[in-house]
């Protein structure tokens, strides 16, 4: 617990007296007493920077969900025509293995029905090497190849190394390579009955936006688990951003892409392995 309890208590009482009968207070307090989980996410909801994912190890059972806004000129689906919202869930299913499900929905569709429910994408991340004293963590991310028409695919090999700067600051360096190719299923929704058939390699530059195609890297300079600054090269542009964590579980973040347009988002993270509080005491051996 790295929050000063007395301050927290005074702060909550103060809110209380100002707003009589604040029904949210018990929840607010509950949130404060939960364990911290790292949940700074990139545009598709994977632990990372702004566009660039990182190879940081996540604890088994870590579950996060949220939404990110991607601006119009950097749109993945209809570049320079529509901005997008990307909804995501991310789960560390077993140690080293993360599953990410994201849904990309365009904003302000010009033709009715153009958007559909959105592009659904399942991505898998495998942590090949865990971080050690002199060894960075290394992870492979692959987008499930059976999408028919996906614009936000991540096929990348990345490494991350964390350095402590004094007692409270840390610098996490990430570097990697995004594949200039992706796999697409040559099919349409009418005859879409075998998801392992007609898989073909395509060049990313044929897409509206070649996301993570080439060398990528960045730096997350953070203050404990409370917040940090983000700098990255996403293979096309240089982006900067910042994030902050509220009540240890709720992350709010924003960034500027190419010193041009703004992206922002939010996510909430918890651990599915945690026993409810009422049982933690009951679990103690008699």
């Amino acid at each position, binding site marked *: 617990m790295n929050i000063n309890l007395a301050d927290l208590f005074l702060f909550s*009482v103060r809110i209380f007296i100002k707003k*009589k*009968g604040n029904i949210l207070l018990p929840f607010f307090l509950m949130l404060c007493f939960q364990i911290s989980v790292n949940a700074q996410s990139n545009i598709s909801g994977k632990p990372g920077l702004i566009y660039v994912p990182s190879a940081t190890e996540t604890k088994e059972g870590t579950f996060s969900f949220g939404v990110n806004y991607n601006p119009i000129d950097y749109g993945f689906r209809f570049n320079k025509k529509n901005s997008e919202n990307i909804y995501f869930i991310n789960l560390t299913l*077993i140690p080293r293995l993360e599953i990410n499900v994201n849904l990309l929905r365009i904003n302000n569709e010009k033709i009715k029905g153009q958007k559909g429910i959105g592009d659904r994408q399942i991505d898998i991340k495998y942590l090949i090497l865990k971080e050690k004293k002199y060894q960075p963590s290394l992870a492979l991310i692959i987008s499930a190849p059976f999408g028919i028409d996906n614009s936000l695919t991540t096929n990348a090999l990345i490494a991350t190394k964390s350095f402590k700067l004094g007692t409270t600051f840390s610098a996490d360096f990430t570097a990697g390579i995004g594949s200039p190719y992706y796999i697409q299923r040559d099919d349409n*929704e009418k005859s879409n*009955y075998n*998801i392992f058939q007609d898989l073909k390699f395509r060049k990313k530059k044929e897409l509206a936006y070649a996301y993570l195609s080439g060398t990528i890297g960045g730096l997350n300079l953070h203050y404990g688990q409370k917040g940090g600054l983000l700098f990255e090269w996403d293979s096309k542009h240089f982006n900067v951003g910042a994030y902050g964590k509220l009540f240890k579980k709720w992350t709010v973040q924003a960034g500027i892409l190419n010193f041009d347009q703004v992206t922002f988002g939010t996510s909430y993270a918890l651990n599915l*392995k945690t026993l409810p509080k009422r049982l933690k005491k009951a679990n103690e051996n008699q």
Partner: protein
Amino acid sequence: MKISNLLSGIVLMFLTFPAFAQTEDMESIRKSLWLNYENTTLDPANGKIYYEQRLDRNPLYGLLEMRKSLADTNIHEYLPIFQGIIMANYKLGPQITATVPTPEERKVQRLKFLAHPDRYKFDFWIQPLFSAIFGYRQQTLQSNTSVLLQTQFYLWQGMVLNAGILFPITNDMDNNPKIIRPAPVFLNQFFAFGKNFISASAGTFYNDQYGVNVQYRHTDMTNPWSYGLEAGLTGRYYYAKDGVYSSSLNQVFLQADVAYRLNRPDVTLKLSGGQYLWKDRGARVDLIRQFTNVEIGVYAMKTTNGATAGFNFAIPIPPGKLLQGRNARLRTTDQFRWEYSYTRGFKIGERYRTGYQLDQKLRQYHTTYLNSQRGD
């Protein structure tokens, strides 16, 4: 007294609550925990407690809270019951261990069940239902959503009548009218002998099928291996404005499966195959991860109708218990299941659902699962 002072006092109490709990409130906590259980039988002579717990889908909650609610510390063996049938005999040491219930234990439980037909509460719960087809451009989300108010009647040991009322919310998936109608009504007989478990159902099921379904599984709560068989004969039914329509019993559903529970990583691998609905035949691989409250799986399957993959999950709907007294209870469901498939509309490996799937129910009681949650 000003409201703000009162509320600050409550906050203070909230913060110091653990201190209170240690002293005079312990007895009332015990009493309120005890209300969560049904059909409890204390056997102090043999140090055993038999109980049923329908509130939580995770049996660890029932085990740990039972230990807490017992004032008698001479009780060392815990025998959780499901539909009046003992699942296993557990001992709560540093590691939870399990043994197969002895015939004597089963006999004790059988006598108790018959002697006290009113040992169960009237249990009502709220269950959402949601199915959807994604991605047709004309109508992007076709969904069928409803809320069910459900209950169970215990008829005899192992035998339960499931019933309820279905309140429709949306339906643009089929032409069935949106009328308030009975929820699936079916009988379920649960039965156990040695390491063998059977769940047999008859009535109207979920996903518009009615008929009979029998599931068999061989497992104990310590062995990583288990296998099962499932057979069903069903037909389609639906409620129209002027009555119930049904087809003949024309669907044969036959499945066999084998599952292995790995310790590290903590996952269950399951290989199953056979005939699905619509005479589709094929095989399926599941990778299942059981977290504390949530079960999450990913799967891939290949059948004559095609190949697909996806994920599924089972979660309890919060907050759980809403109202509870000695004889009745209203709660939200302990289990909402949902599955997403990458394809749609090609009838690949489809199935219907009865109340619970036997393998899902039994793997919750596995000692490896129970112990894995007590790790840190």
